[in-house]
């Protein structure tokens, strides 16, 4: 009977330990959310979403131009990164067993581990110096370089998940291999790839370092790719390091807006993947 007691005691101890680990893991997240909401919410108003920054001392002001700038640059980055990333992923999954595939996979893995500030320097050297100006294009390129490796490896994984029976079914109907890749394999993997793309976009929207000296910042509205452009992250950075309490409050509110934006993208990604599961399980 003592054996049973000891077993139950060990069971209880492990349960408590695991529960404590969960609490420790969730505490930073909860405190982060609490802090951002508590400090950011008072500054939120409809004008905060549509106005551009106000000078120190003037009431009002917002991050409307920074929201547009972030969306604009993430959009530019997606235009560059999504076709390249998905194309590379399909290549890796379908033809990636040779030396070229191994080289591409290795490159993607190394590129995925490059610190984002280094990617920013590369974009600075490649675009900002020759163009002699900070620009949304340079910011978008830096974000795109960050997105490509994650997109490529995620797409590869999702394409590999497509059963080879479907590929064979298509080939046996006299559908050429390239059409099979495009219309059967890619189509079947699409739900997963959309999820991966949305997560990559969400990650890019939260990047600060690569934008600091590529897109710089802008106090005005801008949707021209060759001009300096505001972004939520750099705006938060600038506000946070300023000496003015009013700007600190704006930084908290802008952080809340960024959190909402990224949260929304994650939610969309979850919805996309849930649709895929439903489709598969019906």
């Amino acid at each position, binding site marked *: 009977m003592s054996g049973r007691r000891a077993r139950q005691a060990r069971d209880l101890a492990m349960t408590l330990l695991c529960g404590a680990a969960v609490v420790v893991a969730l505490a930073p997240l909860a405190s982060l959310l609490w802090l951002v909401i508590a400090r950011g919410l008072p500054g939120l108003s409809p004008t905060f979403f549509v106005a551009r920054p106000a000078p120190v001392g003037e009431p009002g002001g917002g991050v409307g131009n920074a929201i547009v700038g972030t969306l604009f640059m993430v959009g530019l980055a997606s235009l560059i990164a999504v076709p390249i990333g998905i194309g590379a992923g399909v290549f890796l999954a379908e033809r990636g067993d040779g030396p070229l595939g191994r080289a591409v996979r290795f490159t993607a893995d190394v590129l995925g581990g490059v610190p984002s500030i280094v990617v920013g320097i590369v974009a600075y050297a490649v675009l900002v110096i020759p163009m002699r100006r900070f620009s949304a294009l340079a910011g978008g390129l830096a974000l795109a370089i960050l997105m490509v490796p994650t997109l490529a490896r995620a797409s590869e994984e999702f394409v590999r998940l497509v059963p080879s029976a479907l590929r064979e079914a298509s080939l046996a109907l*006299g559908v050429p291999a390239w059409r099979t890749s495009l219309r059967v394999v890619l189509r079947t993997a699409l739900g997963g790839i959309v999820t991966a793309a949305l997560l990559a976009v969400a990650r890019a929207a939260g990047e600060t370092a690569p934008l600091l000296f590529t897109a710089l910042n802008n106090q005005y509205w801008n949707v021209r790719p060759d001009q300096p452009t505001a972004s939520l992250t750099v705006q938060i950075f600038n506000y946070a390091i300023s000496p003015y309490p009013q700007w600190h409050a704006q930084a908290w509110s802008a952080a809340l807006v960024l959190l909402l934006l990224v949260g929304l993208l994650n939610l969309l990604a979850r919805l996309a993947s849930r649709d895929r599961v439903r*489709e598969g399980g019906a």
Partner: protein
Amino acid sequence: MPALVEPAPPRTKLAVEGLEAWFGATRALHQVSLSVPERSVLAVIGPSGCGKSTFIRCLNRMHELVPGARATGRVLLDGEDLYSGAVDPVELRRRVGMVFQRPNPFPTLSVAENVLAGFLLNGAHGDRREVMERCLRQAALWDEVKDRLHASPLSLSGGQQQRLCIARALAIEPEVLLMDEPASALDPIATAKLEELIHELKARYTIVIVTHNLQQAARASEYTAFFYLGELVEVGRTDQIFTTPRSTRTEDYVTGKFG
């Protein structure tokens, strides 16, 4: 000269001469030669791993899609050598349809779109409702799915999915239909329906069916080929193979002494 009462000998649809199939350095088929008359059913039997599936995958050049796989020898379809280099495997697969061991409908297409997948995936558009209905009727599936043509094929039962795959293969109007253990994932009732279907289809198509089920081979085919360890041991009329086999190995297999 005898009177002209004897039926003309059936025309040969498929002829295989000295076929060898390889996976890398491993030889999976040794010098296989046989012929299949037009509008008949050839059953391919033998224990697991004897090369049955490899054999029929050589008939529509699906075998070579496996990395490192190749085939040598001649496979003549209406007298034309499929391995001569002049035949495009993509075109060939539209003439030689295939049904696989496990039902594999396209999950992203509807039931109706699955039937027409051979057209849709090749970029052909246009209204083919008649083709779709005819193929579903031929596959004995129309009455069961006519009210849910736009549903997901995954909502069908396994047997229905397999008949959907047969309808899909019929829609591209092949001359030969290859079936790789089409009933192995089906229950007895679905299997009976499938055999009935094969019986009807042979009026129009030449069929080669791989099966593990000897009763099925005996019921559904006119000709039977027995493979063992990559070799064609014996081929002949099904009744002869099952009643008076020439080889003792065939006899042992069909009487259940091994396999």
